């Protein structure tokens, strides 16, 4: 019975989408954070984080098996790393800010809240789709138990 692997694929995707959601929450929460790290005697603002997703890699045996009889397949997705967005930081003129430089400019995080909201909707919709897939697999599994009844 290989049906449970459908669960594994959906479960790995739920984990990955939840991680995306966590990272997006962190980005939105730190949209105004000017003191994320302390480098060389200066405070550096928060930098936007992004999750890198990859399909679960197949072992040699899996690949050979799928090429030989087209059956076995290791499904799923995994988050391999969290990277920082390299887009330039925003410069805002605010001389009264404690982190303003000598010209009165403050470096603000490169977080675009609008972009984060769009990503958030995408992550939550993907999460829902995977829950639906998982429920479908569950329904099929329950139905298979009825064979011969």
């Amino acid at each position: 019975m290989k049906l449970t692997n459908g669960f594994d694929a959906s479960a790995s995707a739920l984990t990955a989408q939840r991680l995306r959601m966590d990272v997006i929450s962190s980005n939105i929460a730190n949209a105004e954070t000017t003191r994320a790290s302390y480098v060389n005697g200066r405070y550096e603002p928060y930098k936007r984080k992004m999750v890198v997703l990859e399909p679960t890699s197949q072992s040699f045996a899996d690949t050979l098996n799928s090429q030989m009889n087209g059956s076995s397949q290791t499904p799923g997705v995994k988050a391999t790393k969290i990277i920082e967005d390299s887009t330039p930081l925003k410069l805002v003129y605010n001389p009264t800010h404690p982190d303003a430089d000598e010209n009165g400019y403050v470096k603000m995080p490169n977080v675009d809240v609008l972009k984060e909201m769009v990503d958030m909707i995408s992550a939550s919709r993907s999460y829902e789709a995977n829950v639906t897939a998982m429920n479908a697999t569950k329904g099929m599994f329950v139905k298979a138990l009825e064979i011969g009844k």
Partner: protein
Amino acid sequence: MNLLNGPEFGRLQGAINAAEMRQRVIANNIANVDTPKFKRSEVVFEQLLEQSMGSGAFQIAGKRTNPKHIPIGSSSSVPQAQVITDEVSVMNNDTNNVDIDREMSLLAKNQLNYNFYVQQMNHDVKMMRIGIEGRG
């Protein structure tokens, strides 16, 4: 005795196995909907079954006079479901080609098909039971 080894049982079993495999493949496609450069896969079974049953397009069938002969064209054996990967089409900027609407409808369709196969199998078992017990 050919109670549970008849061709219709073999075909149903093949169809159920194919539906299971398709469920796995669709779940994998949906899981990777946000993965850059991912290419979707799908399971081919019904077309292969149709070809092997000879009801598809015209094809040459070898006559077998000995059970050891290799079947050519139409045969009574149930084909193995195959996974094929669509490497050609592109859906997004990141060359991922998973269309989530299509995958969700295929998922629903596959679930209904699976339920139908199980129901048909149960029906076969029920008919057989009626035959054995001699009453309805």
